[in-house]
């Protein structure tokens, strides 16, 4: 697969999975606002993550850990959640997107 396609597919899979997982767990009333926020958080973190992992060959766990914390912080401050809740949401969503990415790779 071409590098540019890898990037774009990775972004689409991440946004789709994380949005889906967080909305399912949280079931917010203001779902549109949540949806926009999750897309924005991913748009903020995904390009730097990809750059560090795939171009600079940065350590995987360190980068994924940073993304987890950053997204959790975003959810906490934007929606006034507790740290516990936001870390759970961010962690499960990130884990799901990683697994979804791995599953997709099996079929292409």
């Amino acid at each position, binding site marked *: 697969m071409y*590098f*540019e396609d890898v990037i774009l597919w990775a972004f689409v899979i991440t946004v789709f999975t994380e949005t889906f997982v967080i909305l399912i767990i949280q079931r917010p009333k203001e779902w549109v606002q949540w949806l926009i926020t999750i897309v924005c958080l991913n*748009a903020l973190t995904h390009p730097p993550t990809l750059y560090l992992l795939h*171009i600079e060959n940065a350590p995987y766990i360190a980068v994924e850990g940073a993304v987890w914390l950053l997204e959790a912080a975003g959810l906490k401050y934007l929606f006034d959640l507790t740290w516990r809740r936001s870390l*759970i949401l961010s*962690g499960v969503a990130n*884990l799901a997107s*990683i697994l979804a990415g791995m599953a997709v790779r099996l079929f292409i």
Partner: protein
Amino acid sequence: MKFVALVTFCLLLLAPTYPSSANDGGSDPTFLMRSGTEICLTVPDQNMEKDPYFWVFDYSHSMGEKLGRPWSVIEPNECYQFDKNGGRIFRIKETNELSPGSFRDHSSFKSNDSIPSNFCESTGCYEDRSISEFTNIFSAWPDLGLRETDIIFNTGITADSVFPTNYNLGILTTQFVALHPDAFPQLTRESPFTDMQEKYTELAEKFQKEIRECDDRQRVEYRAEVDKESSRLELKGQLWTWPDQDPVLIDIHPSDLTYRTDSLEILELIGCRQVYAEFLETHQKDIDQINKWLDELEKEHGNLEEEFHDPIFIERSDEAIEEMWSFADGSLEVTPDEEIFLSPSDVEVKEETEPEPEISSYQNDSPSETEKETSTEPRSPAPPDQEEFAETPASEPTKEKKRETVLLSEDPFVRLYLVLPILAFLGLLSILLYRRYRNK
């Protein structure tokens, strides 16, 4: 808190599934770069080693700097990259003074050094080939000078074989007439011939550009063999590879470097038939105009082929013109000869080679591990004429190449992706302000 710990634990469990140097994680660990086809030379000739000579590929300055070494000893089945600045191949007789080891130790040379100035002053070096001898493929340009496109545009397609004009206005019209105007009849220096030549060249340039954009071959490998009589390298063909279709082996006439596969078949092969159809549709008026100019010349001089012999004008039959239009509109199926297709089992695929060591690591005379690497997969029976052909692996792009591919990508989605963090930051700021405003 237990749940957070569980999530962290799961993330840690995933760690071993990812290699420390990140790749796309799939079965093929090499990213493919859409920007640019890799062009290289391979000598898949095991007999080369038995020869008293060895060959060294002297890279162009630009390629030498890119690869970090000025030259490489040619080993069977390794692919030696070249760019628009070409490269030179030296045949060297092994002596006590000159051995392959002398060329493998790059430590005392700069990456833009050249072989003649460092080795050939006394004796023993013969310039076997300049890469331009293999790549000087007929192009659509009206001059013979090598341009960037001549080397990159290695398809064998010539404008005259795909433009449905009433006469075949081939390379002699577009190149030789422009270069040697006095050697041709007076009509070639006057209108309407000059107008026609200008229009034809303009069309050829546009067509060339469009084909380059649609051509997504991953690699073009020039295949050369050692000629047993002359002990020189002779071009035998090209191996084209794609990321997602079977490789093909195109035969090339070594004498005039013409391709045995015709241009329409190549258009089908590289998946550019649609682009060709759209091109003809867009430029039908230009083709008509060229035909009109040809009619004018015919009225004045009679049948142009009879009058001026075939170097300039070769009359084209109605069937040949019809064939081009039919191919473009899809009513004519053109199927390339099946013999050129190689199934993945016909070609020997070597394991991914490690990047070549730094210059300083070439300190001994024996080939490096990379150079000694042999096939790891048993080769399935191949047709006799394909016995010698093996696909060499794509090399993992460097960080710089990846960075360049992403930052300079022309793909609008990739460009949007690059500005996403800024847009996202502004979006999040707006959401925050909106929430604060609403809470007041």
